[in-house]
């Protein structure tokens, strides 16, 4: 999964691997991310408010992630 901003700086990486079951939803991925990468919890205080982009578009919590999808964690933004 792609990560950016402070999440990437703190982790010193621009991507992390998250293991999820088949037919995992966006919400499943956020929960797994929080459990498997404690260092990213600061950027994701609550899986319910976290946002993922799937294939470069914001995806809802019930969206199902498929193998090969490009998944990105959209943490607090800083444009402008």
């Amino acid at each position, binding site marked *: 999964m792609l990560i950016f*901003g*402070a999440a990437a700086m703190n982790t010193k990486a621009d991507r992390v691997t998250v293991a999820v079951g088949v037919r995992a939803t966006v919400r499943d991925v956020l929960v797994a991310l929080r459990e498997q990468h404690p260092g990213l919890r600061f950027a994701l205080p609550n899986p319910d408010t976290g946002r993922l*982009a799937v294939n*470069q578009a914001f995806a809802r919590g019930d969206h199902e992630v498929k193998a090969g999808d490009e998944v*990105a964690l*959209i943490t607090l*933004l*800083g*444009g*402008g």
Partner: protein
Amino acid sequence: MMKAPPAAPPLSLRAAIVNGPLTPQAEADVLSLVSGAGGSGLAGAVLRFEGVVRRNEADQDRGGALRPLAALNYQTYDPMAQRELESLARGVAERHGLRSIAALHSRGRVRVGEVSFVLIVTAAHRAEAIAGLTEFIDQMKQDVPIWKRPVWA
């Protein structure tokens, strides 16, 4: 026979992410829109916002205390950032009845005092221009995947 509706005014939308600080030249390369919109007499209001990198930034690693900055390094998620800028421009223009929106954002390093963001909206009247500009910036900070990383002085 139905009357033909009045010719829809051309709505001009431009969104671009460019490397480094936004200079007048970089801006001119992307836009020729403002003078065009003004010159026709259709837009009575041209509003231009420029975001400049400030010399101090809150340091989250030090409890949010202000700390002198050398530059900001803007990281963009491409091409999603560009697409979100475009879709935001379209939505705001429609909701506020604007005549044009042009948005430019920097990617990469922008030093203190340099410009990282330019937004130009034109509208028949100033109220729409101000409302559209305000909504664009607020929404951009929610939805356009751009992050800033501080380069401390």
